[in-house]
């Protein structure tokens, strides 16, 4: 066993012991109260490769990576870095040993500039020991130039869109010039354009001999970027293969232990009357003149590049940020939606895109999270909540959505990201909406659950619900929608019928 400080010194001297594997993990176990997150897991990372980690939500991918990044300590098992045993007791240890990680949830300081965020703890100092801001901004500009990111280093992070924040996280991780780079679902907030950009960065890093661990739920990415992949299921290691050896279906079988034949079970359902009609909806400075109709049973897909204003339209529709102009009509009757309360009264539902900030009540339990929207009218008599009925319906919903949890009294923050997402979908389905707005409904969701959600949405449509679905995943939009509306820089650039909607058409409208 070598102490991290010695290891760091060895690494600094360049006398790195040669070994085939950058990193090997054997027999790791990690338990959380009531959950075995990892059970006798092994994992190896070769230098100069991209190694994808696959597995359903809650399989333990993030947990293993957090162990490698020094955030959790394993209960059992050993970790070797370049053939040498190490023990990582803090994130600093990991960083000093050349392990950097992009976390599944964004981890930036909103009120600090991009440069300050990237170089935190490693700020360049001048002769007098003061932080040299000019140098820091210059280094950031250099880094951005290398990665071809076009952002001003002096912008504050709170002014950035989610996608740009993700790019900053990526740049920050790269800036550590580590040997091992862990990326936990880096593309869940990105559209294809940024994804492609990220892949050039990854290829470049791989060429430099860096080992990259890449976690994703997007199958197509796997074949595009990964050299090898390992599959986890229920905290157990299933196997490792070269990505050239297998097919998509093989992987899914390994992940979920069963067949999923159809990802987007689009069914033709009878389309009814216009339910939601939006005319010239405008939010000053953000988007303008957005007009569209959705009929009962119809799924309207909303595509566009990151920052095109799709989420803003959804928020305005739901009264989170009331419109500055335009009209909304439901069943032909004009309505005022100036708050989410009003929206819910009109039987709208809105799954937000950022489940941490605007979705989960993190410290509350799953049932409390699921029931909150429905308590406005249902299940309440004289102010008192009908606990039994709520508990029963929440449990039904959770079972229907396959929320993986011992019971509904578990805190939602202890669920894996995908299961949190399912619980939130359950929150809105409990309200039995007529108009369902979904903003990136399958972000961070595994293939099995994704199919499940798609099936659910389709089923809802069959019962006459009008669905507006924002998604940055092209196959999802094309596969699910009856019509696709495309936005660019706050304007609707076109609405395509299912028949005419192709990837190229949509991209054209999105990029103008």
């Amino acid at each position, binding site marked *: 066993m070598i102490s991290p400080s010695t290891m760091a010194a060895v690494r600094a001297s360049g006398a790195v012991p040669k070994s085939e594997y950058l990193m090997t993990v054997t027999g790791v176990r990690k338990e959380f109260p009531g959950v075995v997150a990892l059970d006798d897991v092994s994992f190896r990372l070769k230098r100069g490769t991209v190694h994808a980690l696959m597995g359903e939500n809650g399989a333990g991918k993030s947990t293993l990576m957090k162990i490698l990044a020094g955030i959790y300590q394993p209960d059992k098992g050993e970790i070797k870095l370049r053939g040498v045993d190490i023990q990582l007791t803090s994130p600093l240890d990991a960083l000093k040993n050349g392990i950097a990680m992009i976390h599944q949830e964004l981890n930036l300081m909103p009120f600090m500039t991009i440069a300050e965020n990237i170089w935190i703890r490693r700020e360049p100092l001048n002769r007098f020991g003061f932080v040299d801001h000019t140098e820091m901004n210059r280094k950031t500009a250099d880094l951005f130039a290398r990665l071809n990111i076009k952002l001003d280093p002096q912008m504050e992070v709170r002014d950035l869109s989610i996608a740009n924040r993700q790019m900053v996280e990526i740049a920050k991780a790269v800036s550590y010039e580590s040997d091992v780079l862990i990326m936990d679902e880096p593309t869940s907030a990105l559209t294809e354009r940024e994804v492609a950009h990220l892949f050039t960065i990854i290829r470049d890093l791989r060429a430099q001999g860096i080992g990259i661990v890449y976690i994703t739920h997007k199958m197509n990415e796997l074949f595009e970027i990964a050299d090898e992949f390992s599959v986890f299921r229920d905290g157990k290691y299933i196997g490792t293969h070269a990505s050239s050896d297998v097919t998509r279906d093989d992987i899914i079988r390994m992940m979920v232990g069963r067949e999923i034949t*159809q990802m987007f079970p689009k069914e033709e359902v009878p389309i009814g009357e216009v339910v939601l009609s939006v005319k010239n909806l405008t939010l000053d400075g953000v988007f303008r003149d957005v007009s569209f109709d959705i009929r009962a049973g119809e799924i309207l897909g909303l595509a566009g590049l990151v920052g095109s204003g799709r989420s803003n339209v959804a928020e305005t529709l739901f009264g989170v940020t009331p419109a500055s102009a335009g009209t909304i009509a439901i069943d032909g009757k004009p309505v005022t939606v100036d708050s*989410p309360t009003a*929206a819910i009264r009109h039987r709208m539902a809105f799954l937000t895109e950022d489940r941490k900030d605007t979705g*989960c009540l993190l410290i509350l339990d799953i049932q409390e999270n699921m029931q909150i929207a429905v308590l406005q009218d249902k299940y309440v008599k004289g102010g008192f909540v009908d606990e039994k009925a709520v508990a029963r319906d929440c449990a039904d919903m959770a079972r229907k959505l396959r929320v993986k949890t011992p*019971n509904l*009294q578990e805190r939602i923050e202890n669920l894996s990201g995908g299961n949190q997402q399912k619980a939130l979908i359950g929150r809105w389905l409990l309200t039995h909406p007529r108009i369902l707005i979904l903003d990136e409904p399958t972000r961070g969701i595994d293939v099995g659950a994704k199919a*499940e959600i798609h099936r659910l949405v389709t089923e809802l449509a069959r019962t006459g619900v009008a669905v507006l679905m924002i998604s940055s995943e092209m196959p999802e939009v094309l596969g699910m929608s009856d019509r696709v509306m495309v936005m660019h820089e706050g304007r609707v650039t076109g609405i395509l019928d299912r028949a005419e909607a192709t990837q190229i058409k949509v991209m054209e409208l999105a990029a103008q």
Partner: protein
Amino acid sequence: MTTKVEAHAPAAPPAPRRRLPPELNIFLVLIGIALVYEALGWIFVGQSFLMNPQRLTIMILQVSVIGIIAVGVTQVIITGGIDLSSGSVVGMTAMFSASVAQASTWPRALYPSLTDLPAIVPIALGVAVGLIAGIINGQLIARTKIPPFIATLGMMVSARGISKWYTKGQPVSGLTDQFNFIGTGIWPVIVFLVVALIFHVALRYTRYGKFTYAIGANPQAARVSGINIESHLVKVYAIAGMLAGLAGVVTAARAQTAQAGMGVMYELDAIAATVIGGTSLTGGVGRITGTVIGTVILGVMTSGFTFLRVDAYYQEIVKGLIIVAAVVIDVYRQKKRKV
């Protein structure tokens, strides 16, 4: 087409893990403190600490006003806010309420024409004044979005000013027996426990309670889920103000007088009781039962000091230590259970 899913549906959920109520920790701390006093009592004073009905009463009696406030403060803290104004509101409402509770036999009645009124009038006035203060707090916070710390700090300073201004600093005495009655014997304790019970139920079993927790856990998500945060916060602060008003009434009735300096620093004791009782200052977590236990800890501590004849100089020093220690033990035990 559709997948074979049923076969893989998750197994029936395992029986929910039995969770111990979070108040258990702090209840054990309370028992611990009491037993330490009991032991020390036999060693140093040669008598029992607990086997003394008079002491058992005063232990709770002396903190019942703090407790009434703390019930309101708990709700405010669960929303993620804070209320620094409660102590001053106690002073202010004591003055207002006492001023219409004077007996005609008292030579210097403030409103000679408003003497000998039935006790309900001063009680209602005190509660109403507290309610108004609470509504102002709530409106300020909900509408202007200033931090609760500042809104209630402003109220704290202003309300104290109002209590002094109201009678130019003169105490208000000569209150009717009917009014004083709610301050005698164990009535303050009963008021405290009834209030605690009501809001325990409200927090756990009503929509009001669910919304309170939701706002504290994540205000943005609560808003998107259709909760009108603004109006709910006004309610919560209004209730806190109302309870501070009630506490003011009880204080005046207990002392059989009201003076502008009443209730100074009570807000800190109430917050301490709340946090000792397991309510988290970051919001979303907390229970009235915990607050009641926290309040009783403060009372036991004080009685114990006198009982053990602890030098007054050391009392404060030790009180600070105990507040910290109680919370440390709670945090530590909760962490241990969690990992």
